[in-house]
């Protein structure tokens, strides 16, 4: 018999279901425990850089808002440094967690993050990526979490040079990855799971 590759298979994903809040944001679900929900606050003090909010709604294929969704975001600080154990390029902002978790409102589906505008981070080959936030979406009916990215529509130059945005096969879909500036420090990022405006999701 020839040799074997003794790798394990990643655990298969299953849907987070309609009650993901119980496990991941129990206080939002009305269960008073842990002294607060993880990811509810991304700032733990005075932060460096521009403070911004990102609001949005996640729509299904009938344009109905997902009211049982949970969305997580992960991003570097304003200087482009990640508050991660393996960050070796510098010391990230000590008052910024980089990680946020928000529910869709149970009536409207609207989510909101109170964060900072991320700095740019290099691609593995050294080119700079445009400022972006990684997003991950789970809900009832979603069998495996959906990865996407939030870029910014007021970063034309950086977006044009971005190694990922510039290799998207259908440029008409790029705007689905751009948060739209709606005011000073305010952005809107709606997500469409299906339809003509379907958001680009990543296999990453």
């Amino acid at each position, binding site marked *: 018999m020839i040799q074997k590759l003794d790798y394990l298979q990643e655990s298969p994903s299953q*849907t987070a279901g309609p009650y993901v809040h119980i496990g991941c944001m*129990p206080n939002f679900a009305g269960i008073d425990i842990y002294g607060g929900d993880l990811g509810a606050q991304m700032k733990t003090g005075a932060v460096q850089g521009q403070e911004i909010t990102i609001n949005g709604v996640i729509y299904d294929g009938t344009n109905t808002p997902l009211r049982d969704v949970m969305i997580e975001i*992960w991003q570097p600080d304003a200087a482009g440094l990640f508050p991660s154990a393996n960050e070796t390029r510098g010391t990230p902002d000590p008052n910024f967690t980089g990680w946020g978790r928000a529910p869709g409102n149970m009536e409207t589906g609207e989510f909101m993050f109170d964060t900072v505008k991320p700095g740019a981070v290099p691609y593995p080959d050294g080119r700079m990526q445009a400022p972006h936030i990684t997003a991950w979406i789970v809900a009832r009916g*979603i069998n495996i979490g959906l990865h996407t990215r939030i870029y910014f529509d007021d970063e034309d130059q950086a977006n044009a040079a971005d190694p990922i945005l510039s290799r998207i096969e259908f440029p008409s879909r790029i705007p689905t990855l751009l948060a739209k500036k709606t005011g000073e420090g305010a952005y809107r990022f709606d997500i469409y799971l299906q339809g003509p405006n379907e958001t680009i*999701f990543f296999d990453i």
Partner: protein
Amino acid sequence: MSLIKQTGGYVPRDRNWQPDALTPAYKTSIKRSPQAALLSFPTTLSEESSPVFGHKLIGELDNDLILNHAQTGESAIGPRIIVHGRVLDEMGRGVPGALLEFWQANAGGRYRHQKESYLAALDPNFGGCGRTITAGDGSYELRTIQPGPYPWPNGMNDWRPAHIHFSIFGHGFAQRLITQMYFEGDPHIKLCPIVDALKSQKAVDALTALLDMHRTVPMDSRAFKFDIVLRGQRQTYFENRKEGL
């Protein structure tokens, strides 16, 4: 210093093994599944980094669902069980410091949630959520009551097998995973449209916890073993290829 360097890149997710977005027997997936091809590219710093959750985050009873929502001197009702196992990566290495969050229905199959409408009774001493962080070898343990099966609106008479939901944070956002643990021998497993989103019996087995009599506490709690595997990170003797080489 080891000659082997972590280059940081994660092994691609096996989409032939993971469930598809569209699984029509699970009806909600029909309008919630993306239809365009996913955009594939190698992981970058954004996916190879992850928030830090320290052990001091975790309270004494956070991984004990029998007590963490109970009045003093009382405990949740149902078959007392311990669930234990290890979080590993695809190379078989233990993943230390991984945050596990878990949630489940009570022994009657009822969740504590405002949108839950099943007629089974709530247990005032059971909240249904817990969390823990893996030890240096990737091991974890929790104590709970065995959840009950429950009906759900999909087909006219669909019932979920008893299950515990797990959310897992490893060392890179690329590893982020939510899944469900089932119990060995549950006859509902092969009837469930959500389980059926899995593509093979091997995948179902990978989510089925075995009764573990070695870890059972006599006259107290039975035990089930459930290992979780996260995506692996490449290792090589060679540095990353630079542009032009």
